[in-house]
């Protein structure tokens, strides 16, 4: 196969951005989600309201924010609020349509670990921890996950559950969400460097689209369980010239996240 003319990260960002079509209020995470959301606002979702956990509603960042607390998310925003208001009035009240999460480990039901590798009390690797992830997973209407596939990340059993996904399956998750008054309906999509996964009626990840250049062998080699593959498996449309221009010239000109 010839050189595709775009990187795996660029494909991942573009695919995530397209998933935001039709969404209104989005809780933005640091890193790849930051670029994906800002790309969506310039393409498929111009009316998207960007919410940053640092306490900003309706951000209009003039440059790609270096962190989720960058001053550029404040200048020109609709509102700056305290973090208590952000988490209580915007997220817990149910005003967030999409929350973006990443993690070090994910299981087949979309449960996420961003806390530790190894036992909690004697970790092999200490990771950042929840931040807002655990309450985003519970209270954002839809959760979008962006992660690169590897058999160390897509595991049979996660070492620590930081953010609940579909728990042990859709039925159980539904029941618990209703009983607990969660505003969230759980994970709706996992965008990786190889493809796009949605969740089937059992609550398990199912590969619905393969990125151009990626193979099913690669997909299976980078996941620790036997993955479900859609019988109608599609091929993700390659990034358009305009999508690539926006990513390369406006959103990540230094290629921090995309090379």
């Amino acid at each position, binding site marked *: 196969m010839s050189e595709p003319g775009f990187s795996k990260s660029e494909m991942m960002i573009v695919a995530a951005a397209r998933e935001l079509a039709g969404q209104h209020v989005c809780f933005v995470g*640091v*890193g790849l989600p930051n670029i994906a959301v800002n790309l969506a606002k310039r393409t498929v979702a111009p009316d998207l309201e960007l919410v940053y*956990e*640092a*306490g*900003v509603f309706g951000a209009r960042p003039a440059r790609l924010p*270096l*962190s*989720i*607390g*960058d*001053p550029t998310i*404040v*200048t*020109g925003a609709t509102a*700056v*609020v*305290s*973090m*208590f208001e952000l*988490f*209580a009035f915007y*997220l*817990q009240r149910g005003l967030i349509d999409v929350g973006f999460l990443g993690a070090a480990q994910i299981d087949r039901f979309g449960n996420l670990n961003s*806390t530790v590798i190894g036992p*909690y009390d*004697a*970790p*092999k*690797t*200490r*990771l*950042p*921890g*929840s*931040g*807002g*992830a*655990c*309450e985003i997973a*519970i*209270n954002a209407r839809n959760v979008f996950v962006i992660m690169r596939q590897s058999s160390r990340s897509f595991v049979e059993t996660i070492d*620590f*559950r*930081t*953010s*609940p996904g579909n*728990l042990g399956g859709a039925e159980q998750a539904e029941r*618990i969400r209703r009983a*607990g*008054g*969660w*505003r969230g309906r759980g994970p709706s999509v996992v965008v990786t460097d190889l493809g796009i996964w949605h969740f089937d009626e059992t609550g398990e990840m199912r590969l619905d689209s393969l990125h151009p250049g990626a193979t099913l062998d690669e997909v299976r080699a980078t996941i620790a369980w036997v993955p479900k593959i859609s019988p109608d498996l599609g091929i993700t449309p390659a990034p358009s010239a305009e999508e690539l221009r926006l990513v390369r010239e406006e959103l990540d000109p230094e290629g921090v996240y995309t090379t």
Partner: protein
Amino acid sequence: MPGKVASMRDAVADLVRDGDTVAIEGFTHLIGFSAGHEIIRQRKRDLVLARMTPDLIYDQMIAGGVARKLIFSWLGNPGVGGLNAIRRRIEPASVGEGTALEIEEYSHFGMVSRYTAGAANLPFMPLRSYFETDLPKANPLIREIRSPYSDEVVYAVPPLNPDVTVIHAQRADANGDTQIWGLLGCQKEAAFAADRVIVVVEELVEESVIRADPNRTVIPGLIVDAVVVDPFGAHPSYVQGAYDRDNRFYLDWDPISRDEVKTQAWLRDWVYGLDGREAYVQKLGEERVASLRPGSAPSGPVDYGDYR
């Protein structure tokens, strides 16, 4: 202006005591690096450090040996990677025979709720979070609680009442009436929750400046013990409208902090070897400082009305 204005050295010497629970808050914005460095310089010991995002300042303070325990919700170098000095005190492979850092971990909403309960003199705060996660197992202070009005079960977190909270801000008057614009984080909650409050500002202003714009006042002098004037004191974090985040330093800290010898050498050069923020800014150099100044984007004035 006399009032509560103090030098950083005196404020920290008088108000921060060994064994205290100390919160230096500021979410990405307005992180009190100059106060943290003074705490290292005065070799305070056995502190319990609370902060949502420990950030580089607590990585440096913990490398400086001031803390026995850390209370937090997100442990990373934002946009860069891990906090390596802290990880060395947590991961058994690096702790070895040394003393591990005690940790108490929440989510962001949990930490904000803890300060809010502390500020409002409540025994706990309820929140809809933590369901079906391992966090309550890792931290038994996160507890299930049944609503007194229905069968609903939510989680509760206990109040957090720091002995000392340090807040960095754009400006205050000599009485400690403090105004902030830009990200507010949980500074107000952390200040009201504390027994003692140190406010560090870029600029000391007349009371009339505060009174001309009361909606911008976040912390009243009523709860403030000391006002320290320390321009550029939040570097390498930023102050909205005054200077940008010095991302280069956040990147540079990663290789420094991966190596204990380099970390201690950095502390010698930039903390122990200097007598305060003015010397730090001089060492940083005019060019670096100038490169962090943003352009201008003033807010439109509002009219409060004259009602005499």
